[in-house]
């Protein structure tokens, strides 16, 4: 489990760092909204980084427990963003809907990577 855990941690840390770098570049290029998109996605990677830490704390030496905990959160948390995106779309607020889509994209990315590293089924 240690190897999988360290790969997943590394991936999440890399994503946060990449977002921070992209954000700084976009800010310097006077593209404030796109810089904000990076901050939003960085937050998502940060959230799942924390979840991974909690999953390990609550399931020491139990890879299946970690997997179950993490996958459950990967369903629960984005469900709120799906709801928010749908509400925004219904009221015609495409800007808010786009921000929710960005969170969902990042969560999808986390899910794909986790399954690839952990060998878990989708």
């Amino acid at each position: 489990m240690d190897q999988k855990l360290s790969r997943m941690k590394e991936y999440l840390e890399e994503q946060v760092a990449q977002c921070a770098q992209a954000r700084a570049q976009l800010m310097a290029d006077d593209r404030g909204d796109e810089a904000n998109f990076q901050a939003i996605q960085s937050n998502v990677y940060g959230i799942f980084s924390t979840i991974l830490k909690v999953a390990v704390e609550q399931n020491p030496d139990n890879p299946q427990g970690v997997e179950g905990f993490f996958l459950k959160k990967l369903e629960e948390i984005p469900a709120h963003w799906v709801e928010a995106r749908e509400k925004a779309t219904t009221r015609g607020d495409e800007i808010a809907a786009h921000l929710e889509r960005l969170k969902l994209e990042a969560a999808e990315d986390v899910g794909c990577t986790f399954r690839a590293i952990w060998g878990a089924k989708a």
Partner: protein
Amino acid sequence: MTETEAIGLFKCLADKSRLQILKSLAVEDMYVERLAQRLGLTAATVSFHLKKLAQAGAVSSYKSQYYTMYALNRDLFDTTILDIVQEESEEADLQAQRDEAYRQHVLDSFFQDGRLKTIPAQRKKKRIVLQALVEQFEPKHIYPEPEVNAILARYHDDVCTLRRDLVGEGLLERDAQGYWRTQESE
């Protein structure tokens, strides 16, 4: 354009990607994917920016066959920044109240028992005092100099300075016949 709309527009324009989109639309009307390809952005990002530009009134859209085309609202860009600055402020009433409060404060400071204590050195304050003094003159009436002096002497002993300053500030005019209030002072 209201102040709120102007602020919304300026905020919207203060973004390089949106400015690039507008520059492209200034060339010709385009659809999202074409703009995305031209500017190296994702279609979703271009859509996001177009929504913001549409909200600010900078672009509009129309259907053309299978595409939603976006066009620059050229009328908006014909408006000059000077036009926007010269629009009456939404805070005009508040500013007028503040100006009146300041005017009253100056008058209270320089007048005591109906007499001018000193002639203000600061131009803005002096003008407020002179505007109050010119009110003592009837519009469209020509006053000989001794009469002007007599009126001003009710307020301050240095009538020569006051008389000269009233002319200098464009509140009184003079010729060989005497002095009268200018249209500006009425």
